[in-house]
């Protein structure tokens, strides 16, 4: 009897491979070109970290109104491209911007903000990338639109320049604002 079980065990790799093939076959027909966040229409994941300045920060410190969550890093050249847009948004008070300093070093991040200017209400220091994983971040830069209830409503991967702002974010924000009224 045990000999038979012993023999059947040898077929486990075959079965595992068949299952894997089925998945691969299914995978071929999936569309990976769009990268929506798994968190769209879900609340912000909880976190307890510090800001780039070193002060403790948690989910309760996020603005009580609609805001942008921008994932950036001092190593990230495209972040410099979108930086003027965020500077303008924060100077004109159009919408609060919270930064997520993603997989960076504190000193480098501080330097970057000093050199280039700080458009953020505050920047969450995510050195380990843990918050990034919870958010489903692919890499800096990325920007999320979070509504007044702390629910993620929109995600944009890569540079957010004035064009993207005009064409994607303004309509999304207008729609959300009209929704809430």
């Amino acid at each position, binding site marked *: 009897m045990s000999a038979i079980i012993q*023999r059947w065990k040898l*077929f486990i790799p075959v079965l595992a491979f*068949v299952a894997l093939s089925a998945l691969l076959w299914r995978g071929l027909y999936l569309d990976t070109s769009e990268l929506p966040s798994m968190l769209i229409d879900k609340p912000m994941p909880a976190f307890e970290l510090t800001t780039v300045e070193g002060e403790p920060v948690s989910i309760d410190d996020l603005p009580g109104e609609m805001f942008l969550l921008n994932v950036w890093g001092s190593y990230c050249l495209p972040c410099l491209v979108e930086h003027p847009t965020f500077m303008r948004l924060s100077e004109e008070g159009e919408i609060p911007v919270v930064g997520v300093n993603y997989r960076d070093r504190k000193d*480098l991040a501080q330097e970057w903000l000093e050199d280039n200017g700080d458009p953020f209400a505050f920047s969450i220091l995510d050195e380990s*990338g843990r918050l*990034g994983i919870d958010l489903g971040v692919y890499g800096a830069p990325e920007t999320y639109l979070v509504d007044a209830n702390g629910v993620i409503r929109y995600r944009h991967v890569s540079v957010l320049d004035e064009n993207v702002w005009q064409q994607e974010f303004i309509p999304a924000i207008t729609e959300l604002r009209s929704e809430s009224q």
Partner: protein
Amino acid sequence: MIPELGSFSLILALCLSVILGSLPVIGAQTGNLLWMSLARPLTAGIFVFLGIALAILIFAFMTDDFSVQFVAQHSNTMLPDRYKFTAAWGGHEGSFLVWTFMLGGWMLAVAIFSKSMPIDFIARVLGVLGILCTAYILFMLATSNPFDRIVPLPPADGADLNSALQDIGFIIHPPTLYMGYVGFSVVFAFAIAALLSGRLDAAWARWSRPWANVAWAILTLGIALGSWWAYYELGWGGWWAWDPVENPPLITWLFGTALLHSLAVTEKRGVFKSWTVMLAILAFAGSLLGTFITRSGLLTSVHAFASDPDRGIFILGILGLAIGGSLLLFALRAPLMKSEASFGGNSREIFLLINNVLLVVSAASVFLGTLFPMIYQALTDDLISIGPPYFNAVFVPLMILLVLFLGIGPLSRWKRTSSAYLVAQLGKVAAVSLALGVVLPLVVLLEFSLAATITVALATWILLAIVKDGGNRIANKSSVSKGLRSLPLSYYGMQTAHFGVAVLLVGAALTSYFSSERSVLLVPGQSTQLGGYDFTLQGTEAVSGPNYIGDQAEITVARNGETVKVLFPEKRVYLASGSPSTEMAIDAGFLRDLFVTLGEKRGEQGWTMTIYVKPFVRWVWLAAILMAVGSSVSALDKRYRRLRKPTLDTEQVPGHAVSGKLRTAS
């Protein structure tokens, strides 16, 4: 007309492959000597026709024959000649032809360097490779023929080669990687031939070992070249990014590493046979899976080829046939494999088994991390990403454990090793490693760093264990030089490769923890400081090459006021495609690399740029060279050649007898 000859040549190679995949294998099962002896000439024929096909494709590139679609997509009249040559593997179709040609090359090598093996065995090995070759050529002709024409109106000029691929690293990286990958098909074919014949003895392991060693060495170099290329060309600033396309070679490499060690046990002690066969199948599966992932568009990645589900289905079919078939064969035949010896709980066998388990678990976790986003999407329709944090969290602890056992393994004895003996041998080594690990970083860095301590301690551990083991082996020789000469080549190979692990450890850990980088905006005359160096932008000027225009910056690097180096990073725009490319400037050094990538122009004269100081990064690639050399040296050991003559006569006839017996048994 000439490109059609290329297609024709492929078709001829296909016909020969079909024969090679059938007659010699059937001949081996039925004892038909004539059919078996067809294997070698058929292999030579396949190699020649694949070579002709590749030569014709290269000719089409060199003569700017843009009526060939693949040429029109990947070349341009302005492209320098050496890149026209290498553009032959700059896209899916051509690189698959190179891949298949590599397989032909390995097959030819097996046909030539296998005179010591029984004819029925070699007929099966070449037959299995013939079946693979058939599948690859069919795939090429059906879905991705590099000789397809654009009719009736070919374009006047081509679209140009991807600018990131116009580079020396690209000239050599893909062929090396393919060669390593495909090399594991040979080891796989040996394993399948052994399963088919039932000849799973020490001889089978001895025949496989040199092939596995060489394939592994080339794969190691191929991966290192890829890492080097990505480092200086893609400007990620790192030597490893856990990219979905980087991972499959690593998975193959990890399985391959486990296989090398398992083969050693099987050859020396006649145990772990089914495990070794399984690893040979897994290593090969890793290489096929790598092809599947890069060529089907399954995963989004920086350097995936254009997505095409039809190709994916075809490769999945090949994968199913090859891997599914061999796993099934394994399940049917494994009960016939019996261990020839027993061993105790503290033996070298056990330590090598631990090594194998750790390597396989690492490979499995990389595999899982690579495919999980896809699996998750297939099951839930949601997308997630798995990044370096996952891989580092899983991989680093496993590697630390592996290195601990790497120190113990070579010093332990076969069959049984007493714990007291190991403690006596390694107690001092452990103590010194620990002490040095704590003290050295304190002295150099003037602060405690756990990462540096672990790194130094582990590297010392490997190094001292090598010295201790070497010392033991020459202890009872009359002189040191005589003792050193008495050690076999394979021993030197092993220790060189193990030393490479220590070098890799130092390089990988120190560059990960102590690299610094800074993105700045500089105007001419301005300078910035990083890692004790002053970087001053002197100015920029316009430059142009045969097929691009761009800007070049001049940056002087000074340390304590003395100029160390002048760097010239460039930002180029390739004319035909309009695609920009960053040529970073690197000052390479044994202890540190300095490099600068040029970003964007700001205002009148300002430029953004990123500056990196990377300590010990060269050691990563140096380690790969050491490992590759070690593995190749082992393959040259005379015991793989010595047994040539006797096996020829004595084992040829029993070989048939064994297979005959098996057929009645199963």
